[in-house]
């Protein structure tokens, strides 16, 4: 891969810091985060490598990486990082940033799943699993995925056939409609 280095300050690392409060210059590439990451073997960019790419200002590569979507949010990386970098939050930040900037998600299934899940919560306040699974399969154009699990779950009484709804739907609507992509940050640290 060709790296373009215009200057020695990474605007991208600064941008990530402004959004998440995480200082990625602290990472010295020890690889501990990737060693424990359950999904790094399935992706091209391990967490360590992704952070290095951020340091090197490779925004486009990072926003198009599959890693943040395949990240299982297990926080093993954050827990083990000797520099106390919340690597799981880096993954989340990259994913949210990609979405905010309209970058086509590198793993569409994961985004479709989140979309189906959140739509269900938005309309009822609670997740309607049965409906959500069907809606996910339709978005994904894989209508029969996991179809064999459905009947057994129904027979075992594990799937509700009707959505449950909460009373205060207005509150949920307000939360969905007015939430920002990122949380407000108290102050910005200087390097």
């Amino acid at each position, binding site marked *: 891969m060709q790296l373009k280095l215009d200057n020695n300050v990474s605007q991208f690392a600064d941008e990530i810091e402004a959004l998440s409060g995480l200082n990625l210059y602290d990472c010295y590439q020890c690889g501990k985060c990737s060693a424990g990451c*359950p999904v790094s073997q399935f992706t091209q960019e391990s967490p360590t490598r992704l952070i290095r790419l951020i340091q090197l200002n490779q925004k486009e590569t990072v926003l198009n990486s599959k890693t943040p979507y395949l990240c*299982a949010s297990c926080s093993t990386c954050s827990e083990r990082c000797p520099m106390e970098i919340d690597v799981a939050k880096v993954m989340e930040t990259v994913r949210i940033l990609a979405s905010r900037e309209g970058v086509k998600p590198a793993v569409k299934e994961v985004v479709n799943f989140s979309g189906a899940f959140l739509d269900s919560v938005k309309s009822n306040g609670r997740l309607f699993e049965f409906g959500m699974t069907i809606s996910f399969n339709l978005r994904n154009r894989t209508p029969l995925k996991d179809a064999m699990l459905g009947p057994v779950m129904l027979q075992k009484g594990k799937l509700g056939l009707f959505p449950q709804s909460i009373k205060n739907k207005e509150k949920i609507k307000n*939360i969905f409609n007015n939430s920002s*992509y990122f949380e407000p940050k108290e102050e910005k640290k200087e390097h």
Partner: protein
Amino acid sequence: MAYGYYPGCSLHSTAKEYSMSLKAVCRKLNIELNEVEDWNCCGATPAHTTKEELGVALAYSNLVNASKQGLDNVLAPCAACYNRLKNASYAASHSPLLEKRMNELTGGKVEHDIKVFNILEFFRDIYGQDNLKTAIQKPLSGFNVACYYGCLLVRPSKVVNFDDPEDPQSMDELVNLLGAHAVEWSCKTECCGGSHAIPETDIVLELGRRIFSSAQSQGAQMIAVACPLCQANLDMRQEQINKKYKTDFKMPVVYITQLLGLALGIPSAELGLNSHFVSTQELAKI
């Protein structure tokens, strides 16, 4: 004794045996659970990976309701809900700015300190091991159990502040107290890929395979869990794992509350032990 209770969406559907067994255990032990009124979904992984504020606000909204009800503590048996509620309370208490935003978004306020408990914490610290010991009627002797904590109960430790994030002991202690034997094994806190169960099944099958082979190699006859996502993932997908990797795992994946219930002498049907994909027959015989 009465405690606040946040069931979360899965205890109302796919994890019905978790809810059944918890309720049966609480009835037996005279523990009263007061459901958080008009609770909503905590948002789980989809919310906080889509919009940061959304993930906090959906969870926070439940703390607002609990506060209105005057609840001082809330039991969240689902590990994912537990993690999200803890996260919201941690985030708001560490940032006045964020707390203000949460009040705006939810149109309410958390007026007093509310402690969120997971199921292991609840029985260890609130109900108490000594009290449990005296209530045991049928010790589960002869069973080797792999205690599986997964990620959300113990991580990030800064936020949940519960047990050791690499080698937790609370479930092991509980299982031993019930008369069974908790095996030493290496996958206690390995991730099962729960959040990817539907969109990225291949990853989940591989992670599950690792967990089962580790448990099996240590002589475990079953895996005990405290999370509906782990349970569903490992129980429902075991057959797919066997098919894909030509393995022959037949390992029941049971909720810790089901084991607790059996030891308290509650009939297995009341604990939902017949609703698992992998047969739990051996256990039901107790």
